[in-house]
């Protein structure tokens, strides 16, 4: 039976927001008037009229909004002059997400997001406000009601994930706009003050390297700390609710979020390990769900941190239908094969050393800075060599009803599990050395907005061709 839901009145505020810039127009009019005739009249009246108009249209649009939940389809109706009606089959929904910020919590509202595979990346297909009661009923109608099993993760595990997945770059992306806005709001050059402070502190640290190195290191450390706090707050209260066909992820402290999706909607499962996680021998399990929005793309964390055995156990418990069923293909073993994996790290190592030497000879005054930069780059190259050895030892690919691949993605090691029908492309690349040795690189790209992909190097070309022909009936 169909049931109609109306928007929560708080949606008026969300609908007003894009049009608030109009309120600048009377101010501009006032400025022009002042320049021309040295007097300002009617600005306040115009502001009130415009504000009232914005509120009126937002209220009318809010009143016109309807969410209709049927047995098989859900319809979202909106608009007053331009009336739109979107119909989607419930079985095609990727995920629904409810987010409740403190203001929502006080007024009993919830931001409800419906995601499908057809949406734009990083943006929910449909976003509206519902009352808390209606939101619970809508979720029940879309996904049914069962008694979920709750899996909670300790604060230490969440902190571990926050610490090992945070990066200084994320910290900068988060902190810089906040510092700029706070500075503008307070009317002080906050960024300048902060930079002076960092300069002063770094000037007091005595080291072999020039002060600029200390300053840069301190900035990176601070940015990393910001990223850690941001990530920790985002994932605090992290818990997983399991049902037979559905998963629900709950997290957040100030802004609480719930994301529900059917296990069938999962495009792929990634067991990921960042460089820091590698030190602590921990892994994280993430799933890529079509349409799952948010700033970080469409990957939802399922298990924030755990040992490999623990994660594998949880994987087979949550996603038994994704277990690999094909033959495992891996790079050929032997000294020649290992040397091929280490070829590029060796070349990069020598190039970096050569360039640093030349630069040090040309600019002897910057010797210590060049030495520092060379040390950083060589460390990265050595880590790349270490990952290449990982690829040689553990890189593998299995084709069949489900695809499984283990390899390296930039600085992370990862395992990808995905149903064969979600694979968008399997690309075989052969360089001249590959042709000579009868090998190839295989890249598996998953059909999703985020388009997760993984590359396994130096697999036997003939063997891989046979596997593709056997499982997918495609003669390469």
């Amino acid at each position: 039976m169909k049931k109609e839901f109306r928007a929560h009145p708080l949606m008026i505020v969300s609908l007003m927001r894009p049009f608030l810039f109009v309120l600048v127009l009377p101010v501009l009019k006032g400025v022009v008037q002042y320049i021309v005739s040295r007097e300002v009249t009617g600005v306040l009246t115009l502001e009130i009229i415009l504000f009232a108009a914005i509120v009126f249209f937002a209220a009318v649009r809010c009143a016109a909004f309807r969410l209709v939940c049927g047995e098989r389809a859900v319809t979202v109706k909106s608009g007053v002059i331009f009336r739109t009606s979107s119909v989607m089959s419930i079985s095609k929904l990727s995920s629904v997400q409810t987010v409740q910020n403190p203001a929502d919590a006080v007024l009993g509202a919830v931001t409800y997001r419906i995601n499908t595979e057809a949406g734009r990346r990083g943006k929910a297909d449909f976003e509206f406000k519902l009352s808390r009661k209606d939101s619970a009923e809508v979720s029940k109608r879309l996904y049914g009601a069962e008694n979920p099993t709750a899996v909670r993760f300790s604060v230490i595990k969440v902190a571990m994930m926050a610490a090992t997945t945070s990066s200084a770059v994320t910290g900068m992306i988060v902190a810089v706009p906040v510092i700029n806005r706070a500075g503008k709001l307070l009317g002080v050059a906050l960024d300048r003050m902060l930079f002076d402070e960092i300069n002063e502190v770094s000037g007091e640290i005595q080291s072999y390297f020039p002060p600029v190195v200390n300053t840069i290191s301190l900035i990176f450390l601070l940015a990393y700390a910001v990223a850690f706090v941001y990530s920790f707050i985002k994932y605090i209260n992290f818990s997983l609710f399991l049902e037979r066909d559905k998963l629900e992820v709950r997290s957040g402290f100030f802004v609480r979020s719930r994301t529900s999706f059917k296990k069938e909607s999962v495009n792929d499962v990634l067991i990921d390990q960042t460089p820091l996680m590698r030190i602590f021998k921990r892994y994280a399990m993430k799933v890529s769900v079509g349409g799952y929005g948010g700033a970080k793309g469409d990957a939802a964390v399922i298990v924030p941190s755990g040992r490999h055995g623990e994660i594998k156990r949880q994987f087979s418990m949550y996603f038994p239908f994704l277990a690999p069923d094909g033959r495992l293909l891996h790079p050929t073993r032997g000294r020649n094969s290992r040397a091929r994996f280490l070829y590029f790290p060796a070349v990069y190592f020598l190039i970096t050393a050569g360039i640093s030497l030349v630069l040090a000879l040309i600019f002897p005054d910057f010797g210590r800075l060049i030495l520092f930069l060379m040390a950083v780059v060589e460390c990265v190259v050595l880590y790349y060599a270490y990952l290449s050895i990982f690829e040689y030892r553990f890189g593998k690919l299995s084709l069949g009803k489900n695809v499984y691949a283990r390899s390296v993605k930039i600085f992370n090691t990862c395992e990808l599990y995905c149903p064969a029908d979600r694979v968008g492309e399997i690309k075989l690349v052969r360089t001249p050395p590959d042709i000579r040795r009868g090998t190839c690189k295989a890249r598996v790209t998953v059909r999703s907005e985020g388009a997760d992909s993984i590359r396994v190097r130096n697999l036997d070309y003939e063997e891989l061709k046979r596997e593709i022909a056997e499982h997918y009936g495609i003669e390469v």
Partner: protein
Amino acid sequence: MKKEKLPEKTVLLWQIRLTAIAVLPVALFAALCFLTLWMLLAAAVAAAVFSVLIFWYIPALLHSYEIFFPSGAIVIRCGVFLKTTHIMPFSRMVCADTLATPLARKMGLSALTLKAARSRIIVPELDEKYVRQFIDYITREDG
């Protein structure tokens, strides 16, 4: 396989819309002729271009639309200079949007957008009744 065409009312609707748009630049150029008489020429050229669009291109484009349903998919052919064929299997279709402007509503028409992952097909205004039937059909197909 039965081919569906767009209703004649759709052509009329788009002709009205484009005429409303055309009036503005033509009137503006004509009004500015006191600056230079070249503006009259610009107004004449704009009027000619819009006339071609309104009386030839838009009817030709909308008449070129052919919609048919081979098993489990929708195929849409259209184009005057460039002939395009869109094929979307129902199994890949995620969402169907309808959009009705006040004028279209008055004429009983509604535009349809079919969305799949990373692709969409926009069908110009069809009869509202037909659009409703179509949406019922695809949601039933899916079930």
